[in-house]
């Protein structure tokens, strides 16, 4: 299995608080992705990275920011969490574009 770890695995927080989710990989893959998954919507891309300090927006990037200062870490930040951001967040990695994406176990985030 691809070495990919998400933390925390579960988090409950209040509206208006900042939240940071971490994705850590040990595969030295170039590409990293953040998705959210909600019932009826499948997986939706939030942001992705194609190298250190190289990031771009996905379908649903509003309200989210990312950073990648090292190959192995990709951080997703909700600057001021809202209830609509309650979701399961998945990180994925791949060595190159057009290669399989391997997913982490997900973070279940609840915003009250």
């Amino acid at each position, binding site marked *: 299995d691809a070495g990919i770890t998400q933390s925390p695995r579960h988090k409950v927080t209040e509206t208006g608080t900042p939240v940071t989710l971490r994705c850590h990989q040990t595969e030295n893959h170039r*590409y990293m*992705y953040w998705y959210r998954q909600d019932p*009826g*919507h*499948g*997986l*939706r*891309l939030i942001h*992705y990275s*194609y190298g250190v300090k190289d990031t*771009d927006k*996905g*379908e649903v990037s509003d309200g989210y920011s990312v950073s990648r200062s090292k190959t192995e870490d990709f951080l997703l930040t909700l600057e001021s969490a809202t209830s609509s951001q309650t979701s399961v967040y*998945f990180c994925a990695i*791949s060595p*190159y*574009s*057009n*290669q*399989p*994406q*391997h*997913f*982490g*176990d*997900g973070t279940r985030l609840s915003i009250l």
Partner: protein
Amino acid sequence: QQPVQSPQAVILREGEDAVINCSSSKALYSVHWYRQKHGEAPVFLMILLKGGEQKGHEKISASFNEKKQQSSLYLTASQLSYSGTYFCGTEFHGSSNTGKLIFGQGTTLQVKP
């Protein structure tokens, strides 16, 4: 832009076959297929690139018709372990070097004994 998967849900008996379709309104560069079991992460099944190739994985295969902008996933002689939700992820022309996937809403497959 989200591809449309059909059917939304299907129930099978062990040993039966199923087909899941994924259709796009935009020109596709590639199609990825993933399976997700309840409470788990999606797991990669296969990638199909433009050219209409067909790929196989155990008793699961898929085709990609670039002209029709659609892909189909074929599950033959289904097993209980095939149960889960199947997602297609589409990569469009113009974003072919980014790995950006737009996923369909999923097809839930339940295989009964």
